[in-house]
């Protein structure tokens, strides 16, 4: 059971609306997004239910859901939403809010996904570009899944699918400065 009515002001809704530039109250629960979304069946709560949870102010439950981590930003849902809600933007906003508030769902998938993105960004921070083989290796090491996709590797390497050397941006310094300044912006909100 979910207890409602103890809090009149829905601060969570206000925060999500502000960050996403949408009005979640527009959602009339038609579910078109759910059957559009390619990954809704992997989500704890598909987009429609996330909207309702925000309307009910269920912040913790929303943060603990894996939904926004699974969103692929494919924008299929928003292109069909009759109330023109930018759903991927909403997903992004609650993801960023959860990151800001340091809430991490236990879902192992989410952990993988987070790790992947962290490694990816790290790669970009270091080299300015992404270095795919290293990326795969690091990912597998960090997620303790050493042999994942290893059956693909020999063939892919052989076919030159995954380059062995890698490129760097000449002004790697500039990139690193950008990362620093952007982080600072992130924190001075």
């Amino acid at each position, binding site marked *: 059971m979910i207890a409602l009515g103890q809090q009149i002001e829905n601060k969570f809704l206000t925060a999500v609306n502000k960050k996403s530039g949408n009005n979640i109250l527009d959602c009339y629960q038609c579910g*078109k997004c*759910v059957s559009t979304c390619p990954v*809704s069946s992997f989500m704890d709560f598909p987009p429609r239910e996330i909207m309702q949870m925000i309307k009910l102010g269920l912040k913790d439950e929303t943060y603990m859901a894996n939904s926004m981590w699974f969103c692929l930003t494919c924008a299929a849902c928003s292109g069909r939403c*009759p109330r023109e809600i930018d759903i991927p933007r909403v997903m992004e906003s609650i993801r960023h809010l959860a990151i800001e508030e340091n809430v991490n769902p236990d879902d192992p998938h989410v952990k993988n996904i987070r790790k992947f993105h962290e490694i990816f960004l790290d790669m970009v921070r270091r080299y300015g570009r992404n270095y795919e083989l290293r990326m795969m290796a690091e990912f597998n090491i960090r997620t303790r899944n050493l042999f994942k996709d290893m059956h693909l590797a020999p063939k892919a390497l052989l076919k030159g699918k995954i380059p062995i050397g890698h490129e760097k941006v000449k002004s790697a310094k500039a990139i690193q400065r950008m990362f620093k300044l952007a982080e600072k912006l992130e924190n001075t909100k």
Partner: protein
Amino acid sequence: MARVGVFVCFCGANIADFVDVPAVVEEAKKIKEVKYAIDYKYMCSDPGQGMIRDAIVAHRLTSIVVAACSPRMHEKTFRKALSDAGMNPYLLEVANIREHSSWVHQKDKKAATEKSSDLIRMAVAKSIANEQLHEISVPVTKRALVIGGGIAGIQAALDIADARIPVVLVEKSPSIGGKMAQLDETFPTLDCSQCILTPKMVDVASHPYIELLPYSEVLELDGYVGNYKVKIKRKASYVNFDTCTGCGACWQKCPVKVPNEFNMGIDKRKAIYSPFPQAVPNKPVIDAEHCTMLLKGKCGICAKVCEKGSIDYAMQDEIIEREIGAVVVATGYDLWDPKPYEEYGVGRYKDIITSLEFERMVSASGPTGGVPLRPSDGKIPKSVVFIKCVGSRDEAKGIEYCSKICCMYTAKHAILLHHKVHDSHAYIFYMDIRAAGKGYEEFVKRAQVETGATYLRGRVSKIYQKGEKLMVRGEDAQIGQVVEVEADLVVLATAVYPYKDNPELARLLGISYDKYGFLSEAHPKLRPVETAKAGIFLAGCTQAPKDIPETVAQASATAAKVCGLFSGDTILKDPMISKVNTDYCSGCQNCVTVCPYQAIVTEEIPLGHGSKEIRTVAKINEGVCQGCGSCVAICRSMAIDLAGFTDMQIINEIVSI
């Protein structure tokens, strides 16, 4: 010297809670011309009006200011109070301290009180310049024009004609009947549409007070309430209706086939055709866009086979003029084109049809003999998906509003499908079931329980083809699962949408329409069948989506309005109209060009007193002028003024604060 009386209303707590009413009265008393000021709990009540009547006499007041609710609310009430006290009712001014002050400044009593005083000051200043005005009496032509011959127009025409008032009924297509003629059985009773409609259509044709003009369109409307002049174009039908017997020999022999609009293009009609067997009038017309005789001078078969010699290829459009006193607009609706739903593959898949196509298919007299058939292969569908709210309630792809009838007709379609194809199943994707009406919810229950239709709560997101089937995907929000239905046929309940040419018609009639093109009523609750233009009324789906019972009710209401309007020999018109002071008029005729009603003409008067030379000045037809004030503002010579809103009155308001 003006002697103004000020009456300030508490409106119970509505005003008194947010405005310091006694203070406002004290403030009013300080105005030089105010000789009497008082407050009361409910000014519009009988005792409240009594206070006004008594004070007028006791204090010899020369104008009255009531500070209360909006003048749009009770101006008439208080004007009557003035009349009852023997005072000219137009010496009243209303200061709107409720809608414009107490209700909108509920958090700042001081500011609301000050503002209320200012509003009263303005009203007092204006009232000092008020003049005695008298309603204008104009004669009426007791004949009504009904535009559109669907069930709305038919009902309105019959009701008016039954009151022995002549009616001109203009229908743009070859037959009256409208959409209702295309329907099979109708909710909520499932009686046959044709069976209840056809007798009414025949009544129209035979009614001595109805002049039926099919295949016609309104071109122009001039004049004003009670005194309109209408120009109608009667399109050339190339068939002499006086001699034609409707035998049908011509269309049986005509070699040209055209998609049949009446059957939503499911079958063909001929170039000479009568839209359906029960058409009224039951005479054919030649479709000039497709007849090879009219296009290329080749053929002429129909003329050869017509024993009555009724075919006349040389016939021309005809312009008909009629004088009328009132207009009922009943031009109905069109269906919204679902093309924007690319995710449904509209246009790519033949087996996606609209509700009206389905209606024609299940109609016993329809092109498929009453059995639904897949357009792609002619097979009888077993699994049929109905999708509701297509276009409706969809700001992104369609329109915001609810089309009101599709929940009901979709339930009907499920029942009809079950009747026609026993081993079939209906799946209905819906967002809500709107079944508010007498017997409506019971009807939906019938679809659900007796027919066993599967209702799935969710909007369909995608349709794709897999082999011969259409795969329809949507969420069933009740179980929180995405479902995919294998369908033989998909029926879209497309939105009710006004005809494309409705706005053009509205402009020509001088009435307003909303952003979709539905014609606007004067007040959504209290004047739902009137337009803002006196003497023009609305019936049926031209105003908003409606089902047949509501359409008929509104049509009868317009008839009552028309009969009321025609109950006397003259009608009274607001005296707020413009007048030219010929002494100042330079004859520039700027006003003539801006008047939206062509109310201004020119006249020639002597140049000076007794002079032989003449000069041209403007002259306003007081029967035609609607009092917009355009001419007043445009006139550089300040030769025109608008009664009730004179320059003096408005400037007084401006300078009073």
